[in-house]
């Protein structure tokens, strides 16, 4: 093999490896914060590509998108530009689990993100495979990033590098006995970077995920399926958008089911599934099992739901949600055709599983910077997460923190009480997950506070401080906040006497009479009354925006629960705010149990809070650390 001559190319502040959902947010954040940023991709045609499901959001993922938006990210605005159906899931449940999900027109999603990327100041797109992470080792033994090299020998000096390689590192797509060595949808994979990362001292994992077949719309009998519509009153993902700005005609999805015949075909061919034959070594996610996994794990279920979702308006391809597989092609054909309505299905793209390399994310700080190499960040599926939204959430944080590192500022961390982003990143860097990590509302212990409806109230302040939220947007946000507080105050001050007219009105509203003077706020606590329904009793009311009313009502109605969680958060913050010095010597604490000491040395938690979440570290160990930290602190003070 001929040696490729190396040359030095343009220097950048920040280099981003990958232009998927993590890479885009990371590159945009860094560039918008004034850093000269270069974003590498194996193909500029696949910027923000959605290689699997055609939707953005969903339970808990919708929360992430809105949080990204509140911080000044792009995903929310981009899906608002490109959705073809939108739905608020869990509408009948509590506000904490309401989740927004939209079907995207995949092409429009990709194109409009590409447009943004290509037209952002300070941001340069580059189609090239990055083959090497470059760093220098200082006299103190600390490694520091110097830039990246591409396969063509170009060295791009950079002060910070963000890995956002998605599923592309040494990717292999598999179905049946067939393996192709490509990224998703036949895109080129990245074959060199893994070795370079290992050489730099990083520990890698091999994970697996999969996708179902895409079917030609014309071959499907939709008449035997249930139609699924979007909401009439849609809610935009982005806090910058109003409903009327983005309203459009929506496209339906369809529901059908597998049956015993489908399951029989799968069972008869399990030995040819690479998942079961051992041909796949990567660890797959439990939450997104292939249909063969489901049939094996839940033998009692006689049918599984299959949702048919359009991939966009530009194409006839239909995504079969719930039926990902890696069975051989002919088995796939038989299997899909056994499903009601798919008897004549023409498969445009086969289902396949994909294996890829990612890093063990416990090697990262909660800022997403690598502990071992200063200036090196990682975000998205390369951190072992799964999902577009999880990727974007990490991307924006990595982008912000890379920029801050370049600018000599301390990194930001969203903690578990501030957002799903915090839960996601804390879980990734603190808990050793051996499978792709997906967000779930049940992972958020302060879920009542972390609602999708108040993501702006939780995070706009941070986005503004960081510099991603414009003054104009910030002013609007402050006005909203003020309006909420003012209305809560007004409702608590406007009281109704127990007059005959008031009681009569209340009776007509289907609620109990009052016997003493009662504030409107008190009345709103009654589940049978709504803000609208008590309008008759509230003539002094001004017309307020819907989002303000929503906050007011939630705050009143769930006050007890919300207060309780706020108290828990207070307790949580106490440990979270106890920082552990980076060079803390765990060996000098004899009272720590051996297992705890090993784990603490391995993880080097940044705070007592993080330490307490490491498995193998007990409350007693935390007490010991607490005392020791206090001692160190005081000694420093006395010195």
């Amino acid at each position, binding site marked *: 093999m001929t040696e490729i001559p190396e040359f030095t190319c343009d220097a950048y502040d920040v280099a981003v490896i990958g232009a998927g959902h993590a890479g885009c947010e990371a590159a945009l954040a860094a560039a918008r914060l004034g850093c000269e940023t270069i974003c590498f991709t194996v193909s500029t045609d696949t910027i923000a590509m959605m290689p699997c499901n055609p939707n953005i959001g969903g339970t808990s993922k919708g929360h992430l998108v809105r949080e990204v938006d509140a911080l000044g990210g792009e995903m929310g605005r981009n899906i608002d530009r490109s959705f073809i159906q939108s739905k608020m899931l869990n509408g009948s449940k509590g506000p904490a689990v309401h989740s927004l999900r939209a079907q995207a027109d995949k092409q429009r999603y990709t194109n409009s993100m590409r447009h943004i990327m290509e037209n952002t100041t300070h941001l340069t797109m580059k189609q090239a495979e990055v083959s090497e992470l470059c760093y220098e080792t200082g006299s103190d033994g600390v490694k520091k990033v110097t830039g990246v090299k591409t396969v063509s020998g170009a060295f791009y000096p950079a002060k910070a590098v963000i890995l956002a390689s998605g599923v592309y590192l040494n990717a292999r797509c598999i179905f049946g006995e067939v393996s192709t060595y490509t990224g998703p949808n036949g895109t080129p994979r990245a074959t060199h970077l893994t070795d370079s990362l290992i050489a730099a001292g990083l520990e890698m994992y091999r994970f697996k995920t999969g996708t179902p077949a895409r079917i030609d719309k014309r071959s499907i009998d939709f008449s035997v399926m249930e139609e699924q519509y979007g909401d009439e009153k849609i809610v935009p993902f982005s806090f910058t958008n109003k409903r009327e700005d983005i309203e459009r005609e929506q496209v339906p999805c369809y529901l059908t089911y597998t049956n015993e015949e489908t399951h029989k075909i799968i069972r008869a061919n399990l030995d040819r599934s690479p998942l079961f034959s051992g041909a796949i070594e990567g660890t797959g996610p439990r939450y997104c099992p292939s249909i063969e996994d489901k049939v094996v794990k839940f033998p009692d279920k006689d049918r599984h739901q299959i949702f048919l979702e359009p991939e966009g308006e530009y194409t006839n391809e239909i995504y079969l949600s719930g039926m990902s597989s890696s069975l051989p092609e002919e088995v796939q054909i038989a299997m899909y055709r056994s499903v009601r309505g798919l008897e004549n299905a023409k498969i445009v793209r086969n289902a396949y599983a994909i294996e890829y390399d990612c890093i063990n994310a416990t090697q990262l700080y909660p800022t997403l910077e690598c502990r071992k190499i200063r200036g090196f960040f990682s975000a998205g599926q390369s951190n072992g997460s799964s999902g577009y939204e999880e990727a974007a959430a990490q991307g924006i944080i990595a982008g912000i923190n890379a920029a801050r590192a370049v600018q000599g500022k301390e990194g930001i961390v969203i903690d578990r009480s501030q957002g799903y982003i915090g839960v996601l990143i804390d879980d990734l860097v603190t808990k050793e997950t051996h499978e792709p990590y997906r967000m779930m509302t*049940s992972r958020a212990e302060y879920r009542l506070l972390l609602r999708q409806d108040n993501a702006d109230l939780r995070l706009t302040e941070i986005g503004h401080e960081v510099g991603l939220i414009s003054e104009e947007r910030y002013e609007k946000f402050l006005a909203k906040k003020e309006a909420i507080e003012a209305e809560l105050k007004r409702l608590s001050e406007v009281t109704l006497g127990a007059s005959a007219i008031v009681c009569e009105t209340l009776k007509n509203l289907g609620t109990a009479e009052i016997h003493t003077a009662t504030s409107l706020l008190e009345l709103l606590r009654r589940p049978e009354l709504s803000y609208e329904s008590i309008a008759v009793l509230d003539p002094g009311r001004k017309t307020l925006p819907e989002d303000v009313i929503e906050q007011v009502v939630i705050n009143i109605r769930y006050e007890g629960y919300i207060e309780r969680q706020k108290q828990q958060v207070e307790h949580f913050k106490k440990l979270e705010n106890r920082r552990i010095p980076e060079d803390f010597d765990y060996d000098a604490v004899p009272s720590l149990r051996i297992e705890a000491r090993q784990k603490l040395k391995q993880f080097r938690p940044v705070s007592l809070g993080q330490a307490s979440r490491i498995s193998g570290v007990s409350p007693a160990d935390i*007490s010991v650390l607490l005392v020791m930290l*206090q001692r160190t602190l005081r000694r420093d003070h006395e010195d």
Partner: protein
Amino acid sequence: MKDTIAAIATGLSRAGISIIRISGPEAAAVASRLFRVGKKDALRPVDVGSFDSHTVHYGFIVDGAEVIDEVMLLYLKGPRTFTTEETVEIDCHGGILVTKKILSAVLKNGARLAEPGEFTKRAFENGRIDLSQAEAVMDLIAAGNDLALKNSVRQLRGSLRTRILAIRDEILSDVATIEAALDQPEYYSLEGFSSKLLDTVTAQQETISKLIRSFDDGRMLSEGIKTVILGKPNVGKSSLMNLLLGEDRAIVTDIAGTTRDVLSEEMRLNGIPLILIDTAGIHETADPVEQIGVNRAKGQAEEADLILYVADASEPLTDEDEMILRSVTKGKIIPIRNKTDLTVRTDEETFRAFLTRFSIAEEPVSVSAKEGSGLTELSERISELFFKGCLEADDEIVITSERQKECLNEAYESLSRVRESLASGMPEDFLSIDLMGAYGALSRILGEDADEDLINRIFSQFCLGK
């Protein structure tokens, strides 16, 4: 802000005085809920926080309507205290029972049981003790926790553990059902789930409250069955006590009313731990000193786990015997006919008929304390009464530590909140908050980390997919 903690500061022993220490921002407030001053029959509450700092006050500790003990209360405002926090110390009359009862009452009224070494830890954190003591403190904490864990693991063998695991498992399964439906609303529905949940939660609460009740049984096992010897003067109570103890502990004379106060001894009878309490004979008396003894005897009888009611076989039964049986309302009772070595004036049949009038079905035991006869039968009866079905039906399942009880109480309260949420029609995601609260409390009893349980359960129980 820190919470308020409490513990017995003196260690459990039969020392003359025990101290319960309360430390934290709510110390005075907690104490005010229990501390009463004034005459015993006209007690009134007082704001402990209004006392001058570092002053001692005489009064009583009450638990609801019950007066637990006569105490001296020490009020110390921060920061001139051991922990630098507001501190209240209650000096009570020693004795394991009383001390624990006071602690219980303190915990019920807003304090949390201190972790091992926690007072010292706070003292250290607040800069009260010097650096050289830090290592010692850490060792103490580490050792204390290990010990507590070991103890609780030891106590949790067998059916208590099984019982808690079973409830915990049910709860987790219900939460997983809710969470799976929240995570995949298009795949899983929660229709009809709430009404089913109400039944489950109600049953779980019953089991838990039974476990909480068993705390008293557990206490009897670990500390001894509080056994009070009761009877009118000179029926041979003290002789019986000496016989049981096998030593001359109580002063025995022929003069009625010799025992003027309460005598207490711990002993084992065929392996059964007893706290044996001899009392003054109960009768109408004009002697004020004797009267105090009589009142104490009645008080003891009220707190007894077991009453040994002694009658004199050589004398006829009198009004005083009736008075005694009327005053006994709680606890198990074994009637004893003593002095069977003398000429019998009250035979077994008369005695039995007399007992029936007070609805006491328990077969009397005939004893001669002087000759030492009947002792074997008596001890057999005690062991039968307590360890063959007379403790809570599940005699094996007993909880013995205050910490476990506290966790069970917490689980119970969480489940109560679930029921409230169900009653007020809250959406299901609110239910899982308190269900997980109960789950966490039960996990703490088992010393287990419950972090990833829910996620694992959702995946194993439900088929989630895209």
